[in-house]
């Protein structure tokens, strides 16, 4: 399929030459049938293009090879050679006999060794691709020569970048940013999970090194405090995600049903009233709400003034109450959102279903349970799972409302309302326990991946299954 599109315009030429793109000869095949210049192209990049008259192309291949070699010699190897140990020379005081005092001698920086090693190893991928292309274009040039076809000029090659190979032009920049700022950082952090890069091993003063699965063993079995924190926080994360998702979903849908009910006027005004709360940045609205419910906040002060209470209610500082409060306040944030999302879908429910239910005398509650809910669950299943995953990682609501507090003495650097993701944040930003944080990040990834897979399969089944009936 893709081969066809890639070569469709080259079609005329392609048909004359055997073993071109369309047949996708294997790499070995290219080497075997590409003549001596193809063999040399595997060692000296661009050699085949060069001898076949594609001078600029050949030079570019060669220049990239030289560039890569220089990069490895002058920069990459200096870090990669220490990758297995992550450095052995620690920064420290060394006695300088000439002056007669201790001097601070620079040591190796484990963090930089790991960071640049990941970068260097990652450059093997483009190197491999250029190497592969060097052989391939040499082979193609050789075939063209045998068939007596004129080699395309460099200008012509460049022009295909705007048409036949336009995907290369468009993808190159996004791929570079994606690799540099998303993929490599993630690989680096995954590697960190297998080191002891914690608060007591901070470069440049200290070295850190590989420790295998120790961090995971600590979280799951060995370290009672870690184990305790992880178990507690994981459980709460799931409880939170379930409650936050279900409450928002049901209430948002009920709100949408109320606004869209026949005979209710000013629909647009009602909708806008609720939508405004989504539009106000969360750091503003949530900070504000958390201040309202503080021990000396406006809610407690007002209740005191009315003589309803004597001592402030510990809305956000009592463990259980704080957990209930974050779920309730989250409704304030999330219900309008669900309302907005479900409005369109609710309109699509076949009206005759309700009509016949009405004639049968079904109550509104009965209609909701037997018609609306099953239909909505069927259509919005994937959205529901995505929301659930989003709630597992709902950093803003928790961090802005309680900052994970109240602090739990049995936990390691965490509080009763902390989710895994806010715990991760605290461990990195407040504590610099990067190894533990990375291990937790990987665990979050596994959880998220599992549920996303579920959502994906759900979508698949919805697509296959024809109609809701």
């Amino acid at each position, binding site marked *: 399929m*893709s081969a066809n*599109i*890639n070569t469709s315009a080259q079609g005329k030429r392609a048909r004359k030459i055997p073993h071109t793109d369309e047949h996708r000869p294997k790499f070995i095949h290219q080497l075997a049938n590409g003549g001596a210049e193809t063999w040399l192209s595997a060692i000296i990049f661009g050699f085949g293009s060069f001898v076949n008259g594609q001078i600029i192309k050949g030079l570019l291949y060669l220049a990239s090879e030289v560039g890569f070699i220089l990069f490895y010699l002058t920069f990459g190897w200096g870090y990669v050679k220490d990758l297995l140990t992550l450095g052995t020379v620690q920064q420290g005081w060394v006695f300088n006999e000439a002056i007669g005092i201790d001097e601070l001698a620079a040591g190796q920086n484990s963090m930089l060794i790991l*960071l640049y090693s990941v970068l260097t190893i990652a450059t093997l991928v483009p190197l491999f691709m250029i190497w592969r292309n060097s052989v391939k274009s040499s082979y193609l040039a050789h075939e063209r020569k045998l068939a007596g076809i004129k080699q395309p000029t460099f200008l012509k090659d460049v022009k295909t970048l*705007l*048409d*036949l190979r*336009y995907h290369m*032009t*468009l993808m190159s*920049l*996004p*791929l570079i*940013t*994606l690799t540099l*700022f998303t*993929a490599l*950082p*993630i690989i*680096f*952090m995954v590697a960190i999970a297998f080191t002891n890069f914690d608060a007591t091993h901070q470069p440049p003063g200290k070295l850190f090194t590989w420790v295998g699965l120790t961090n995971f063993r600590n979280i799951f079995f060995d370290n009672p405090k870690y184990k305790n924190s992880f178990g507690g926080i994981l459980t709460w994360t799931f409880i939170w995600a379930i409650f936050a998702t279900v409450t928002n979903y049901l209430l948002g849908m009920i709100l949408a049903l*109320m606004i869209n*009910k026949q*005979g*209710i006027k000013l629909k647009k005004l009602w909708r*806008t*009233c*609720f*939508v405004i*709360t989504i*539009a*106000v*940045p969360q*750091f*503003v609205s949530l900070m*504000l709400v958390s201040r*309202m419910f503080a021990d000396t906040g*406006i809610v407690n*002060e007002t209740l005191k*003034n009315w003589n309803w209470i004597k001592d402030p209610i510990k809305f956000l500082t009592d463990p259980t109450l704080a957990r209930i409060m974050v779920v309730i306040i989250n409704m304030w944030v999330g219900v*309008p959102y669900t309302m907005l*999302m479900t409005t369109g879908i609710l309109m699509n429910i076949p009206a005759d279903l309700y009509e016949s239910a*009405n004639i049968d005398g079904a109550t*509104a509650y009965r209609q909701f349970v037997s018609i609306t809910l099953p239909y909505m669950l069927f*259509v919005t299943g*994937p*959205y529901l799972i995505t929301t659930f995953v989003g709630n597992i990682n709902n*950093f803003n609501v928790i961090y802005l409302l309680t900052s994970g507090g109240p602090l739990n003495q049995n936990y390691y650097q965490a509080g009763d309302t902390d989710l895994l*993701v806010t715990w*991760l*944040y605290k461990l*990195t*930003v407040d504590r610099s326990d*990067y190894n533990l*944080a990375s291990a937790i*990040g990987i665990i*979050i*990834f596994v959880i998220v*991946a599992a549920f*996303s897979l579920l959502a994906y399969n759900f979508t698949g089944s919805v697509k296959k299954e024809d109609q809701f009936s």
Partner: protein
Amino acid sequence: MSTREIEHVGLSHSMKRRKQITNAAIYVTLSLLCIFWLLPIAWLVLSSLRGETKEMYTSYIIPKQFTLWNYTSLFTDTKLFSFPRWYLNTLLVAVCSCAITTFLTLMVAYTYSRLRFKWRKRFMNISLVLGMFPGFMSMIAIYHFLKAIGLNQSLVALIIVYSGGAALGYYVAKGFFDTVPKALDEAASIDGLTRNGIFWKIILPTSMPIVAYTALTAFIAPWVDFIFVSVIMKDNYANYTVARGLYMMIDREHMSEYYTRFCAGAVLVAIPITALFIKMQKYYVSGVTGGAVKG
């Protein structure tokens, strides 16, 4: 026929009454909910206009004295917190990252939607997997990387952070491009347009709503984020963005003095974003539910 008509009238009469009662109940519920939902926002706006600036909380909601001082002093009193500077920082970062993000996102979306090549499926799967890692994880590494090349605590670093993940956020735009009829491309191709030409002259002009949506969401991000700024800027107050700066205004140290001014600043940030959001909510909805809703 006639009996059914009579039945129908009788039924609709009692139903009409019932309907009126339910509707009244719904109006009451909606009004109550609206009050509940808008109260914090009303409180924010009223606090920003409050003349009694020395008190952090008042037990009454409507201020005794109205003033615009909170707003003006944000721009005049820049001794400790330089709101104008933060505002310009945010504007600069937002404009740059908006331009970069929009370009990258649309390029990727168009490629995945229209061009077929060997690695297409694989790239999309890799993107999906990368998107499942928590954002902070890459954040920390980026911070160390920027520090190693001496870019940390700078606005450039912030632009990089906000636009670095652009290639992952193509879903909404791709969904939109998918709905643009392929016949347009084919016709243009017959007329001799290259794929480059089709992208610029056919697809982009017919997809202006999604261009606007992508640009706006990218533009809004720096105004509302305070986490990435915290990690990148640490204590470099001068390079804070509005969100991070306002966040600092109500920490324990400064809250009592700056509370009303925080409210004023928050209103200044919220107004344009709210306006943009209400304008763009249609695309927002279709973007999020696009995968879920059939036909």
